[in-house]
């Protein structure tokens, strides 16, 4: 028995979008100028707030690595049909979800500015978390029905 294809496709799409988003911010950070403060919009405020780094590493870079890993794990599952890959990916999704939750709170209550790219990332990591849970439930159901047989 296989895990629902729709779930896997959503998982692939969300991790890919998340990767594009985080990779863009990473490239912008290492190549671009310091984002100036515009009359409207809050990206500069967020991206230069001091909270854009963890242990001296850019959060955007960590995000890009995280999303790429999930994406590759999902591809590995699709090509090999080994469930361990997708289960690993699903089990990793709470990391991104909790990180995103933290960053949304920071933006709303501490930095008091909203960055569009960070919000996209919050959306993709939430989608990944929800899909991840469903994948695990799906897998458990299958295991249980196997045991019953």
């Amino acid at each position: 028995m296989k895990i629902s294809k729709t779930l896997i496709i959503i998982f692939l799409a969300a991790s890919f979008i998340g990767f594009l988003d985080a990779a863009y911010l990473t490239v912008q950070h290492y190549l671009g100028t310091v984002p100036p403060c515009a009359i409207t919009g809050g990206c500069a405020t967020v991206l230069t707030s001091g909270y854009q780094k963890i242990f001296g590493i850019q959060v955007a870079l960590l995000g890009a690595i995280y999303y790429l890993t999930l994406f590759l794990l999902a591809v590995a599952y699709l090509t090999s049909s080994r469930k361990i890959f997708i289960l690993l990916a699903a089990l990793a999704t709470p990391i991104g979800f909790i990180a995103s939750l933290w960053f949304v709170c920071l933006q709303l209550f501490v930095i008091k500015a909203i960055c569009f790219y960070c919000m996209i990332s919050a959306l993709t990591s939430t989608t990944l978390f929800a899909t991840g849970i469903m994948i695990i439930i799906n897998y458990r159901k299958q295991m249980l029905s196997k045991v019953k047989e």
Partner: protein
Amino acid sequence: MNNYESHRQEKLAKEHIARKKRFIYQIALWFSIIAGIGLIVGGMIYFVARQNLVPTNSLATIESALASDDWVKGNKDAKMVFIEYSDFQCPACAFYYPLLKKISEEFGDNLAIVYRHFPLPKHQGAKPMAYAAEAAGKQGKFWEMHDMIFDNQNKWAVQSQSKIKDIVVEYAKSLELNIEQFEKDFGSKEIEQKVEGHYREGVKAGISSTPTFFLNGRILQNPKNYDELRNIINQAIDENL
């Protein structure tokens, strides 16, 4: 028996070919995925690098003559005039602040660095800080206050609006200013109008973000780092000679 054996071998060979095909398919798939990701990242790098080369508003200019009440670091009569429109609460402005300090040390009397206010409406602390710097300026310590405000930006920027005044009075005390005078100037119409005037001039010049730099009246694309900024100024000096 023989028949069975050959049949079995045929089956094995078929399986072998199928496995080989699958293997090649896997390699091709992974190769294209990695190549695709490489292309995407490469494309982004190209896009971002190009974006930095094209000036956003290269035609924007500003009168390079100094106003009598401008705050100038370096030589007032220098041929090279570097005007900064800045917001004390903007993190990007705080990033450029030590760079400009270093520039002023390096170029000394060959350069006039001018600070003008462009407090963005979304930064609630930017205006009071601009007033504080101006009020300190009335007692001859504009740049000292300017430095103090930027040095502590991440501390006061997170404080509530109501605490800002206490904070600037603290700063004024540590700069040994006459506090009574400072408080009077801090709330004065004159200073408020000066800051407002800078802002309006900036809007007229087409400024939409901070910091915005002008070198001899011409707008600059914000440099990435100290070396780039230094090169821009050096180049302008060479052209002017």
